[in-house]
């Protein structure tokens, strides 16, 4: 009688992805305010933001095509799917077998491509610029991300996230040196992919260096809301993937409510700590010039490859 | 009986045309005579195929599948060329390049040339073979110098001197054959090929090897083997186009035929692969020299003259290797080469006549001027370059694969040479056929029946060789042996 549990977990995960992600974003911003000893707007600010945006009237450019209007929904859907695949609370997820890590990366790529296309749809200078930079970061970050995942896959002889998590958390504890490399690489990719400092500045407009915001310039109201929401879910997804890969402890393998609650607790703690960590990084580091982003991500890629090689050298 | 008739018709025709060669219908007469020759050759061929080889007239004439196949080819190409030359020479006359007497000379010599070719092929006597070759040289010298321009005279002179000297060496070789065979066969029959063939195992090896060297250098000059090839491009370029066609299509083949006959005897005497190796060497050398000279040419007929050297080299190489497949391929290549090359010369002639020049830079956009000429030249060049599905590819395929078996070291050379030839010739043909041109479209399409006749025949040989033809080739190949 496990199947309903599985579906329940699945559903809960989806809901959590939707609900927790803005709060997580709010938490990060709050931490940043504290670190810059300002008084933050509070953890729930993003929700208010979203609601406000949803109520507004949408303004579209004259030459906006259907593609432009559909993109927010596509993006939203992609991020939600990603959220459902990753084992956050439990590993016996029926939907997890739909897609493995490679598909996960594929989903992110799909979202990125759609966003870039939408950004170029209006044909404004900023949109084009943003799209180009986003795609550049994409093709630099994606290999690094996949290499990280490959390292894990080589360790656990599987590309299914649930299996990876099972092997890593529920077999006896082994120290994998390759993990260190992988983790560092993953962190760098995370920063780049979610347009955080030092690669991009999420809370900026009207800067020639902006990337992610530049692509969303033409959006307004509900479309913008969906995009914001989607990007917060993306951030959340990246974090939970990171947890699943590197600190998988606490994720329920069975399907007891007790272990479920435990997993819930563990997730909260992880998110809180990680959010604070991210804020700390952002507070400490300055944004780098766009020309140096390739070096940054190249380093990430190198680290990831090194991780794989160390796996073959030391662990295989 | 056919044999006498076969020789008699062109001879008589020659004399006829010597008198009526400037008549209004002389060209038609020329074609008719050639046609009769062709018919006759056809009958003879049919008889040989059905009853096997024959020796007649005090053993002076002798026909076997090997030479009857060349006889038929000769008659065919001679006929189609006469068809082509009918309008061509007329236009040349209108262009004022020829006087009536020259035209007479042309027609007369054309028939005499055919006669010498047939004689060389049909005779059983090595001496007569030599005489016929020499006579062929003389007739063609007159034909090459037909325009009496300085260039044509120079070409003819070089042709005469070089081939004359070459032929003289061949005579020395023949004398040595005679010398070697005399003690075995006595005076009267010791130059008869059939007898020589019977006793070839007992001929003295040293004499035979020396003799073969002389014969190879001698007849090889006429085949156009490097480094005795220098006359060939000049003669091809400066003579009238029909003559270039028959030179490439017939004369070279016949000279090569002589070489092969000698090779058979020498192999019999020497029991080693000496003659074959020599031919392989000369073949490769000519191939390479020719292909590397191709890219420098400016004159279109020179270009295809060199391509003839290339293909003769290839055929020589094939016969040098010997064996059933290689010989088969060599014979096949002889056929397709003479058909294709004459077809090419026909189209080239038309193109040169339209544009009033032989310089390739000045020939452009043939497809616009006259699609038939353009396509003829394009397809012909592709065929001669060994593009499937044309027959040239079939023979080259067989030659190359056999070489892979017997002379693996040579195959890369062959392939590189063929690739270089492709690059050179096609790079020159393409801009001539394609592209824009200032010249306007010619009103009436030229008479290119012979071209497409030849090309379709070559195409057929590439896709499907009729059984009787194949058996014929096989028997001939068997005769040549190793």
């Amino acid at each position: 009688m496990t199947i309903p549990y599985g579906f329940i977990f699945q559903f809960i995960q989806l809901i959590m992805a939707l609900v927790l992600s803005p709060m997580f974003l709010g938490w990060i911003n709050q931490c940043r305010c504290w670190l810059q000893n300002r008084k933050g707007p509070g953890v729930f600010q993003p929700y208010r933001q979203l609601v406000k945006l949803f109520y507004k009237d949408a303004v579209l450019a004259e030459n906006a095509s259907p593609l432009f209007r559909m993109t927010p929904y596509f993006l939203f859907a992609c991020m939600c799917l990603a959220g459902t695949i990753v084992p956050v609370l439990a590993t016996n997820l029926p939907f997890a077998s739909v897609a493995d890590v490679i598909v996960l990366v594929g989903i992110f790529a799909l979202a990125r491509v759609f966003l870039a296309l939408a950004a170029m749809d209006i044909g404004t200078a900023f949109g084009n610029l943003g799209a180009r930079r986003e795609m550049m970061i994409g093709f630099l970050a994606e290999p690094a991300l996949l290499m990280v995942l490959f390292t894990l896959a080589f360790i656990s002889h599987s590309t299914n996230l649930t299996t990876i998590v099972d092997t890593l958390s529920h077999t006896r504890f082994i120290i994998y040196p390759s993990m260190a490399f992988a983790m560092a690489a993953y962190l760098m990719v995370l920063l780049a992919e979610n347009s955080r400092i030092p690669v991009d500045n999420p809370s900026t407009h009207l800067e020639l260096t902006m990337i992610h915001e530049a692509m969303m310039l033409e959006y307004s109201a509900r479309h913008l809301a969906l995009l914001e929401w989607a990007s917060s879910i993306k951030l959340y997804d990246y974090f939970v993937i990171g947890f699943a890969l590197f600190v998988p402890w606490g994720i329920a393998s069975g399907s007891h409510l007790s272990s479920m609650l435990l997993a819930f607790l563990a997730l909260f703690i992880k998110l809180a700590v990680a959010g604070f960590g991210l804020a700390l990084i952002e507070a400490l580091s300055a944004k780098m010039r766009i020309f140096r982003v390739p070096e940054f991500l190249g380093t990430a890629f190198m680290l990831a490859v090194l991780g794989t090689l160390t796996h073959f050298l030391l662990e295989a | 009986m056919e044999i006498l008739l076969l020789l008699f018709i062109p001879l008589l025709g020659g004399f006829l045309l010597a008198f009526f060669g400037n008549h209004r219908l002389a060209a038609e007469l020329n074609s008719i005579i050639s046609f009769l020759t062709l018919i006759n050759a056809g009958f003879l061929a049919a008889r040989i195929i059905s009853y096997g080889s024959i020796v007649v007239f005090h053993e002076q004439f002798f026909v076997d599948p090997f030479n009857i196949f060349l006889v038929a080819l000769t008659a065919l190409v001679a006929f189609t060329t006469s068809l082509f030359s009918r309008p061509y020479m007329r236009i040349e006359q209108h262009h004022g390049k020829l006087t009536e007497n020259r035209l007479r000379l042309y027609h007369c010599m054309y028939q005499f040339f055919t006669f010498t070719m047939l004689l060389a092929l049909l005779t059983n006597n090595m001496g007569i073979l030599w005489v016929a070759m020499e006579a062929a040289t003389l007739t063609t010298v007159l034909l090459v110098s037909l325009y009496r321009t300085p260039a044509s005279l120079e070409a003819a002179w070089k042709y005469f001197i070089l081939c004359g000297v070459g032929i003289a060496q061949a005579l020395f070789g023949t004398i040595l054959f005679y010398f070697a065979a005399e003690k075995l066969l006595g005076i009267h029959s010791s130059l008869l090929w059939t007898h020589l063939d019977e006793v070839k195992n007992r001929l003295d090896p040293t004499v035979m090897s020396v003799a073969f060297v002389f014969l190879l250098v001698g007849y090889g000059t006429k085949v156009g083997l490097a480094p005795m090839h220098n006359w060939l491009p000049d003669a091809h370029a400066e003579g009238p186009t029909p003559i270039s066609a028959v030179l490439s299509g017939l004369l070279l083949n016949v000279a090569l035929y002589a070489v092969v006959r000698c090779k058979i005897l020498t192999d019999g005497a020497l029991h080693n692969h000496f003659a074959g190796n020599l031919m392989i060497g000369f073949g490769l050398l000519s191939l390479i020299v020719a292909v590397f000279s191709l890219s420098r040419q400016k004159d279109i007929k020179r270009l295809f003259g060199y391509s003839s050297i290339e293909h003769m080299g290839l055929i020589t190489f094939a016969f040098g290797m010997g064996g059933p497949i290689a010989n088969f391929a060599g014979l096949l290549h002889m056929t397709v080469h003479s058909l294709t090359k004459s077809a090419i010369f026909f189209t080239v002639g038309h193109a040169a006549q339209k544009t009033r020049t032989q310089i390739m830079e000045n020939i452009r956009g043939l497809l616009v001027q006259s699609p038939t000429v353009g396509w003829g030249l394009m397809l012909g060049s592709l065929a001669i370059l060994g593009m499937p599905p044309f027959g040239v590819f079939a023979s080259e395929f067989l030659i190359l694969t056999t070489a892979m078996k017997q002379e693996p070291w040579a195959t890369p050379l062959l392939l590189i040479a063929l690739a270089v030839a492709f690059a050179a010739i096609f790079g020159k043909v393409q801009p001539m056929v394609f592209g824009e041109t200032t010249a306007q479209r010619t009103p009436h399409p030229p008479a290119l029946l012979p071209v497409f006749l030849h090309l379709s025949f070559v195409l057929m040989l590439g896709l499907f060789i009729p059984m009787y033809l194949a058996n014929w080739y096989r028997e001939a190949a068997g005769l040549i042996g190793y």
Partner: protein
Amino acid sequence: MSLFNSSIQGLPLSIILDILVYWLVIGFSGLIFIHNRKIVSQILFPLGASGGIVMIIITAASIAHSPSSAILSLGLPDLPFHIRLDALSAFFLFLLGISSTGICFFSSGYFSRDGNFSPGLVCLQFHLFLVSMAFVFLADDAYLFMIAWETMALSSYFLVVTDHKVPEIRKAGYIYLLMAHISATAVLLCFGVLQKAGPQGIGGSYTFEMMRHLNPDSFWATAAFLLALFGFGAKGGLLPVHVWLPEAHPAAPSPVSALMSGVMLKTAIYGLLRVTFDLLHLQIWWWGILVLTLGLVTAFFGVIFSAVQNDMKRLLAYSSIENIGIILSGVGLTITFQSYHMQTLAALALIATLYHCLNHACFKSLLFLSTGSVLHATEERNLGKLGGLIHRMPWVAFLALIGTLAIAGLPPLNGFVSEWLLLQTFLLTTGFPQPYLNMLIPVAAAGLVLVAAVAAYVMVKFYALIFLGQPREVRQHEAKDANYWERLGLSWLASCCVLLGLFPVEVIKLLNTVPGLLLGQATKKVASQANWLFLTPLSPDRASYSPMLFFGAAAIIILITFLGVRLVYHGRVRRSSPWDCGYPMQTSRMQETAESFGQPIRTIFSPFFRMHSELPSPSDLEPHYRNITEDRFWYLLYFPIGRFFHFLSNLFGRLQQGRIAIYLLYSFLTLILLLLLI
């Protein structure tokens, strides 16, 4: 037909032959209506498409059957044309059928518009091209193979130079045919090596059947393999013999480019597979590594070059090089696995390879065809001058979007499936004897991923610059959408992309007979315990992917979100001019151009390009920016070779310098030399 009287086993083969004859008839009837554009385009090409459809059905039905062969009473004496229909050839014929159908439909729209070419001739060459490719797949002896191979090159050459008035096109055609011929000579030499050990006699060992039975030793096998790699690689656009491809493909009319990229390049893959796995019996591990490395280098090279192109068809051509590289890396993996007798993995790699062949045939044809429509609508092929066509030509835009996403390797479309399979193969590679290989494989995988990611970049550039944004030139305002035939062709291919993406398991079931043929019957079926919904290469707990569910879920979520937003809130929309941070005076010329979009690649991978750019100085009154990116290989490889041969020809030219005395001397010396030799 009297030609096919002799001994045809099996209905499928005879039907296929009938299709080929049918195509030939169509082609030659093109000669009859040589100038009648209406008949040719509206009747003949659709008929050709019908032949393609039948081809698809027959091959799909017969791919699982045992090989059936036939002997045509054509060809050389003792060497008639042998043809054979086995799983491999059936698969490639299937591929041919799929893409040729779409292309034929499209062509009937494309060639109905007028240009300076004679439609009948194009029709003939087009169908001859189809038939020759089919014969390449069917041939069972070296001679027929070579004939089909060269006929293919020839007919495609004539198609390439259809518009021969343009000098560049002539040059492209020349380079193309020359490279094709060189590759053909290499292939011929390869067959020569293969039949070397065979017996004498015409037709002795030219049939593949014979070649299968004589096992050359490792030296000659290696020679044959390397020759095949060179020959077929040159046909497929393998580095460094790829230079013809970006010249020829753009030069041709778009349907022809589509056919060349979609199908003709696959003949190279077919040949390589045929020689390596069918005719040769031993594989050596380093062959695989060689192919793998070359393939990855090619893919990388192709993708970065396609990223910096300005001409949309050149961009696609380079992306073809990239895809061939990916396919070849798959082949390399297969060879390596096979050499270590890891048959299951080999089978998986092979399946991935074939799958990618199929996918590339679909989406590359689709994209080339859409460029054809764009070209017709705007007479413009420079990406920097297009734009905003999504409003003018919505059909093409939508269908091309599918192709773009597919080629960018995004789920749930087909491009992703094959790349996923290939990556899976890489990931399952751990058990090699050499530790080096185990190290190399992940790096190779990384390279593959990099390529795929850059490909996404390229495709965004391609699609966005053509269809999105504002029109960069005035002309595009009156651009017209594709006509019905063109739409039919495009949607055929697009739907193939979607179906291949959504039902991989079914496709793999189709492909599964090929490894059995090539790698030995013992090979375990790939995805054997997969149901139609889940694609699980080996076992569910290793990896699994269900595009159908993925697609469904995404669709549901989109729907729910949409409805939710609409129900809870409102759907009010106002239109206004773009905001763009409030910058005034936005003109369409302020958008990205092709050059600027390629800039990141140029800067990041600058050592690979041979660039020279003219930048405006600060004091320029009319500043203009130009950047020319060239292929280094021309300067590193081809020009030196050309110079070398030129030098040689000058050398040989000295022989013929006019003095008769010298000529006599040659003859004299030859004589003396030979007499000395005796």
